[in-house]
């Protein structure tokens, strides 16, 4: 019978005090940490795409080069729109911390609208390039360009769908520990995409037209 109290014996002293009475871990903080680690893997995804782009960016194969192709006014507009959306995303989190569900959903809606107009501008930029004959199959440079910038765009688009889903959930359930964590997660994601865009803007566009 020595094993009857197998681990009970070692469970004394500190007991399970840190587990807040329910014998379970704080799930929301685990999820937030998991998302941080996911973002690290996403950093590596973008790092790999940047590396590929940098290696291949001179491989224009007689096709259009970066400086012939890029039109900076549109890109600068995109940049300001996305940066502003990061700011409004921050305002959304501030409203949440003040307990204002209306403010939270409102600012999230502004953020999503700005994100959507960013995507709209990006798509029109891509369409224009394709009409000028600069497609993903034209040269290694353009393959790298469309894939890198496109991957960022896909990320933003996924973020938009996610944000809408979250606004509906907030509308139904209000600010709870679960929805609070979800807002924090999407805000991390959104700021992260903003940071990535700054690198895209610098390395792809600014270095491209220099």
């Amino acid at each position, binding site marked *: *019978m020595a*094993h*009857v*109290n*197998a*681990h*009970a*014996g*070692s*469970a*004394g*002293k*500190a*007991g*399970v*005090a*840190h*587990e807040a*009475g*329910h*014998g*379970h*871990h704080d799930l929301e*903080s*685990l999820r937030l*940490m*998991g998302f941080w*680690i*996911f973002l690290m*893997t*996403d950093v*590596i*995804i973008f790092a*790999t*795409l940047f590396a*590929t782009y940098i*290696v*291949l960016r*001179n*491989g*224009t*194969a007689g*096709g259009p080069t970066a400086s012939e192709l890029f039109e900076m006014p549109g890109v600068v507009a995109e940049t300001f729109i996305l940066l502003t959306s990061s700011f409004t995303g921050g305002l959304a989190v501030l409203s949440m911390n003040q307990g204002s569900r209306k403010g939270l959903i409102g600012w999230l809606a502004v953020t999503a609208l700005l994100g959507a107009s960013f995507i709209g501008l990006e798509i029109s930029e891509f369409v224009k390039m394709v009409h000028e004959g600069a497609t*993903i*199959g*034209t*040269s*290694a*440079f353009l*393959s*790298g360009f*469309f*894939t890198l910038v496109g991957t960022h765009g896909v990320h933003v688009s996924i973020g938009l*769908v*996610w944000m809408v*889903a*979250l606004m*509906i*959930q907030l509308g139904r*359930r209000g600010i709870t520990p679960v929805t609070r964590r979800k807002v924090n997660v999407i805000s991390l994601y959104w700021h992260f995409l903003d940071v990535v865009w700054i690198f895209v803007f610098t390395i792809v566009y600014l270095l491209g037209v220099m």
Partner: protein
Amino acid sequence: MDRIKEFASTFFVTGDPLIYGADVAIVATMAAVVFVLTYFKKWTWLWREWLTTVDHKRIGIMYVVASLLMLFRGGVDALLMRTQLAVPNNQFLQPEHYNEIFTTHGVIMILFMAMPLMFGLFNLVVPLQIGARDVAFPFLNSLSFWLFFFGAMLFNVSFVIGGSPNAGWLAYPPLSEKMFNPGVGQDFYIWGIQISGIGSLMTGINFIVTILKMRAPGMKLMKMPMFTWSVLSSCLTIIMAFPILTVTLALLFIDRYLGAHFFTLDAGGNPMMYINLIWMWGHPEVYIVVLPAFGIMSEIVSTFSRKRLFGYKSMVFALMCISVFSFFTWAHHFFTMGSGADVNAFFAVTTMIIAIPTGVKVFNWVFTMYRGRISFPTPMLWVMGFILCFVVGGMTGVMLSVAPADFQFHNSYFLIAHFHQVLIGGVAFAYFAALTYWWPKVFGFKLNEKLGKWAFWFWNVGFYICFMPQYVLGLMGMTRRISHYGWDTGWWELNLVSTVGGFLMGIAFLFQVWQIMHSIKFMERDATGDPWDGRTLEWSLPSPVPHYNFAVVPTVDSRDAWWEEKLRRERGEAPAPQPKLEPIHMPKNSGIPIIMALCWFVAGFGFVFDWLWMAIPGLVGVAVCMLVYSFSYKTDYYIPVDEIERTEAAARGAV
């Protein structure tokens, strides 16, 4: 009618009697499975208890079963190759077929055998070792498994539908590009690996959070069992390496599907970029599978020497060093690329440096045994086989790391022998040891020792007979991936010997299957929960473990917590009073993971055949599954105290 015939003749692989045989076998097996499930009315049971489970122990069992099936498939591939090479100018396999077989052999053994077996062990052992009730993200864990499963299925389907990939296990361009490889085989390769790779990445994240956040109170990092440490180092390597694989495969797919020029020979593309990228994942990948092997060795050596592990801190340091250094050695796979002396020198030196922490471990194991009370049940025998084999394999690795010498060894059978020695002698032997060691914890009975020893000796003897001649063949100039050689090469005798060794390992596998079936039939229930006199927390639980693992979460104050507890009891110290049971918070089962992974399968299959009508609904299905999950808030429940009491009484009543 004719159109259907024409479609079928390209859709299905035709013309090879071996494959027709396999077709019959596949259809027969599937019919048998469906029949048995229907006849015994087991569909609901299968769905409720297994397919939708989020219990890490069951997911672990499913990983192990799937990986053993894949071991069979990869092993048959290996034996086909050895049969072909047994005599010169053999007409058994045509070169095209041979190319497909070495490609699928490599991919299956690394990605669909070693990786899932490793994840299975993570799942079976880690939460129990750290005193947790589940992993951090049980839903994600289930999703990881199903992504692996459907990825593997997608890859294996290529065998009978559409045609297998044939560009080697890493699919180097330009050979794997559309221009040289217009069939669908490479697309199966890309999507099969891509889908299961996403699963691997999520498992990496899951176990990092589990280990960092869910340890029992008092278990400081430096009090963790060594296997848990090795899992942590492996998972850290996974999250850094697998995103590179995801991108690399995606770029290759964009090349093939949209006509981009990342890795093509024309329009500015650069095939060497692919080779760099794939090895930036590929080299860490081999450390990902071997690091847990080191952890397994440490647990087993210490248990069967009845001593604390020698040099715990140096072992932790060595594990972490390897997971960092593994990212700085990738170019040693292509010293012959022509990167110049400086680059080659850098990678040669880093490769040699990584041998140092590996050597540290070997000394730690040996010193753990020194003056221990050693016994030699099967798991410990595997450890012995492992240490010897791994040391020799490591040495030949150091030989390969010498860049100038590598120009001779490169892509020869010397290399083949080397990496099989570290992957079989290192990874496979360790995982077999782990399966035998933790089997009683998972199923509640030990595996038959006698048959296990037969399997062990057949594996070991077969291994040396198979691969030692290959080192010599490599030095004699035999290159990898050749399907025919002439009488005038002088390679016949050694190849024949090697083939004999290969079949001995095949027999060894049969012994393992027999061992498992025999042990199930004549099982002797282990009532103690601690049949090996173990040291870590998992042995404090009854076997099989109740689904909530720990009725009361233990408090830990030393390494080898369970061993110390047993010592305290021997000294007659009264156990601390048992805290009152509380309801346990558990995650609910979910059908979303398997459905979502199935949607990925559909999407992948659609992209393989360029059928957007299939790919788009697949992707939409994935998105819908994610949204459905996002909107579901009731994903957990509480096990009431009286149920815990009943379960504990039943589980421990046998003690």
